[in-house]
C-alpha cells in the first residue's frame, strides 16, 4: 500500500495544470494556422519573427510573473522600458560607451524596482497605486528627455543591432533560388536566458519558493518564518531589473527611441502572464507558461493580420476575447478541481 503510494503519479499542481493548458492551446493554434493559413506559418522564420518582435515583451512578462505570483502587480514595466530606450539612445548618441549604456539600462530599471519595492513592502502602499505613479513618472521623464524620435547613430551599437544568429538549415529557399537562413536577433537570446534564469529562481531557489508562499497566503508565510517584507521588496526589484533589460533589448530591435515606445506593453505583459496560467490572486504561475502565453498572444495577433483583418482594432478585439476565454477556462478548471476534491 505504502509502496503503491510512492509509485503513483501525483496529480498536477494548479500551476502545472494551467501551464499545460496554455502550451497545448498554443501548439494547437499554431498547427491550425500552419494548416489553414499556410503562407508564412510554414516557415520557421515566422516563429523567429514572433520572438524577434516580442523579445522585450517576453522579458517584462517574466518580471510581471514574479510580482504576480507574489500577489502583487507592476504596471510600470512598459513605461520603464520606454524610458530606458530613450535614455540609452541619447546616451549613445552623445558618444557614450556601449558597455556603460547597458549599465545605465540596468540602473534605471533597478532604481524603479527599488522605489516600488520600498513603497509597497515597507510603507505598505497598494502596489497598483505605487506602480501607476511609477508609470506616469517614467512616461513623463521619457517625454522630457525628447519629444522627437531619436535614431541611434552609435557605431558600436549599430553593429550589435545588426548582429543576427543565422541558422541555415532552418531557412528556406526563396523563389529566386537563394537560400534564406532563419535569423534570430541577439535580444531573443537575452530573452530566453531571462526565462531560464527566472525559471531556475522560481523553482530551485528558496527566494523563489518564498514568492509562491507569500502569494498563496501572506499570514501563513509569516508564521512559517519567511521574511515577507524582504521577499516582496525583492519581487519588485527583480521586475524593475527585467524592465531595464527589456528596454535595452527593445532598443536593439528598433534602433530608435520614441516617446510612445512600448505603449501599453504592461497590459500585454499582464495578459501574457494570465494566459500563461498566472493567477492575479497570487501563488500560482510559472514562467514557462508565461513564455508560451506571450507566444499565444502574439500568434493570435499575427493570425488575425494574416486572415486579412488588417485594421488594428481587430487585434485588440481578439486579444480581449482570448483573455476572457483563458480566464473563464482557468476558473472553470479550478472550480471543477475544487468540486472533485470535495466529493472525494
Amino acid at each position, binding site marked *: 500500500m*505504502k509502496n503503491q*503510494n*510512492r509509485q*503513483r503519479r*501525483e*496529480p498536477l*499542481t*494548479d*500551476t502545472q495544470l494551467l501551464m499545460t493548458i496554455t502550451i497545448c492551446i498554443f501548439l494547437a493554434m499554431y498547427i491550425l494556422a500552419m494548416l489553414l493559413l499556410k503562407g508564412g506559418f510554414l516557415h520557421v522564420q515566422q516563429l523567429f519573427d514572433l520572438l524577434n518582435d516580442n523579445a522585450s515583451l517576453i522579458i517584462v512578462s517574466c518580471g510581471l510573473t514574479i510580482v504576480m505570483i507574489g500577489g502583487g502587480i507592476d504596471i510600470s514595466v512598459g513605461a520603464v522600458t520606454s524610458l530606458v530606450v530613450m535614455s540609452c539612445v541619447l546616451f549613445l548618441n552623445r558618444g557614450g560607451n556601449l558597455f556603460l549604456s547597458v549599465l545605465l539600462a540596468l540602473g534605471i530599471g533597478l532604481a524603479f524596482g527599488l522605489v516600488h519595492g520600498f513603497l509597497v513592502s515597507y510603507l505598505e502602499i497598494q502596489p497598483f497605486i505605487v506602480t501607476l505613479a511609477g508609470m506616469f513618472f517614467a512616461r513623463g521623464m521619457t517625454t522630457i528627455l525628447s519629444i522627437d524620435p531619436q535614431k541611434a547613430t552609435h557605431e558600436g551599437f549599430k553593429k550589435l543591432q545588426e548582429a543576427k544568429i543565422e541558422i541555415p538549415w532552418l531557412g528556406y529557399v526563396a523563389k529566386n533560388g537563394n537560400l534564406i537562413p532563419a535569423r534570430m536577433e541577439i535580444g531573443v537570446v537575452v530573452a530566453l536566458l531571462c526565462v531560464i534564469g527566472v525559471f531556475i529562481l522560481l*523553482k*530551485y*531557489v*528558496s*527566494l*523563489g*519558493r*518564498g514568492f*509562491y*508562499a507569500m*502569494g*498563496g*497566503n501572506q*499570514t*501563513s*508565510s*509569516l*508564521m*512559517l*518564518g*519567511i521574511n515577507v517584507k524582504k521577499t516582496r521588496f525583492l519581487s519588485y526589484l527583480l521586475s524593475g531589473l527585467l524592465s531595464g533589460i527589456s528596454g535595452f533589448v527593445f532598443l536593439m530591435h528598433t534602433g530608435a527611441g520614441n516617446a510612445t515606445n512600448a505603449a501599453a506593453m504592461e497590459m500585454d505583459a499582464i495578459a501574457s502572464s494570465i494566459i500563461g496560467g498566472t493567477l492575479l490572486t497570487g*501563488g*500560482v504561475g510559472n514562467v514557462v507558461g508565461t513564455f508560451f502565453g506571450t507566444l499565444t498572444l502574439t500568434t493570435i495577433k499575427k493570425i488575425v493580420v494574416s486572415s486579412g483583418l488588417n485594421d488594428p482594432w481587430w487585434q485588440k478585439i481578439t486579444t480581449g476575447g482570448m483573455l476572457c476565454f483563458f480566464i473563464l477556462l482557468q476558473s472553470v478548471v479550478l472550480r471543477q*478541481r475544487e468540486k472533485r*476534491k470535495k466529493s472525494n
Partner: protein
Amino acid sequence: MEENCLLELRGIDKMFPGVMALNNVDFTLRKGEIHALMGENGAGKSTLIKILTGVYSMDAGTILVEGKNVHIGSPQDAQNNGISTVYQETTLCPNLTVAENMFIGREKSLLVKQKAYEKRAEEILESLQIPARARQQLGNCSLAVQQMVAIARAVDMQCKVLILDEPTSSLDDKEVNMLFKLMRDLKSRGVGIIFVTHFLEQVYEVSDRITVLRNGELVGEFLTEELPQVQLVAKMIGKELDELNNLSDTEERSAASGEVFYQAEGLSSSETLPFDFSIRKGEVNGFTGLLGSGRSESVRAIFGADKVGGGTVKIKGKNVKITKPVDAMKHGIGYLAEDRKRDGIIADLSVRENIIIAMQVMNGFFKPISRSESEAFADEYIKALNIKTASRETPVGALSGGNQQKVILARWLLTHPDYLILDEPTRGIDVGTKLEIQKLVLKLAEEDVSVTFISSEIEEMLRTCSRLIVMRDRHIVGELKGSDLNQAQVMKTIAGGES
C-alpha cells in the same frame, strides 16, 4: 518543582486598555501530557496562547522551558524554544506541496533541496501515519490532513510543546479521531500538548489535565478524571453547584399560550445541523449553551444570515421561504447581531441614520423617509430608550457600548417587528443598561411580540425567558420550562451526562 516539567508560566499579567486580560495566571505543562485549556469567551485563553507564541508580550511574569527562563518576543523565538502552534485556520500555504510546506522558511541554503525534502517529508508522514504524500499539493488535502501536516512540520522542528488552538472545530468525527490518534502518538513520544477547544466531550476523550481560566484569572488545574463534566461547566461559568441549588428565586412565569408565530422544521444552514424550533406570540425564549455550542448559529439560521441549507419554515401557519435577511425582515423578524461592531452599528453614521436604516430597507430605496419624519423617529426612540447622546446627529461610534446597543434596538423597534431576536444584547455594557434592556424585553412580550434572547449570563436569561433551549456541540439537548428553569438544572443540561 516537579521532575518532568516542560513548560511553566508563573504570574503572567497582561493589560489591554481598560481590561485586565490576564491576572497572575500560572500554567504548567508536563512531558507527555495532553493538557486542555478551558474557559468561556473573554476568559483569557487566546491571550495566554498569544503570549506563549510571541504574538503579544506579557506585562509581568516568567516563562520557564525545561526549568530555564526564556524570553519569547516573536513567533520565531517561540519556535526556537521548541514551542509550536497549530491554529484553527491552518497556517500553511495551500498552493505549495506538502513537502514544501514542511520545509519552507527553514532552508539554510540558497538552493532548495527538493529531493532531500521530499524524502524527509515522506519519512515523517509515514512515521506519524499521516495520509498525505510529499508531492501532493496541500490545497488538495482535507482540512484535517492539512492540520496534521502542520503538526508534522512542528514535530520535525523538534518541538517540545505543541499548542493546538481549536483544531477540531472544522473537522468531522472521523477526522477528529485521526487527529486524536496523532495526538496520543506524540504524547507517547514525550511531547507536551496544550489543547484549546470548546467541545467538552473531546476534552474528556483525550486530555489528562484541565486548566480553567475565567475573566483572566486562573480558576484551577484539575486531573481530567477527577473533574466531572458538570463541575467543569460550573467552573467555566463561575458558579459553584451547591450555591446554585439554593438559588431558586425565579418566579413562575406562565408559558405564553398565544398562537404559534414562527415554526421551523429541520431548519439548517451552512453553520448548523438541522433543528426544529417554534415560538408563540408574546413568548420570550432563550438559546443557551457554551460558546460554540451553536446557539448563535441557530438564530442566524432563523434570520437567514447564513446560507440556508434546508427545512420548512411557517410563519402564522403559512409556509414561507427565508433565505436572506431581507426576507426575514419582510416577515416581521428583527435580529440584533452578536458582534455589535461588525454586524450592527455603522460607526460613522449618525444616531438618526443608524436608527432609520432598517426601516428604510423595509420601505425600499425608492421611498425615502423624509428628513423631518426621520428626525421625529429618532427623537422618539432616543427618549423612549433613554439613549444618552449629545444630539441625534452624533456619530454612533462616539457613544458608549450600552448606548450603541440601544441605538440598534431602536432600529429594530422602529420596524415594529412581530419577532425580535436578540443575540447577546447585554454583552460589554453596564449593569444599569442591562436591566433596562431586560425590562424592555418583558415589555415587548406583553405587547405580543415574540422575543428570542441569548446571553452568556444565565441569570439574565432565567429572569426574562419562559422557555430555554439548551444546546451542546451543535445539538439541541434539552428544553427547560416552568420549575426546571433554575441554574442548577440549566448547568446539568449543558454539561450533559448523568452526574
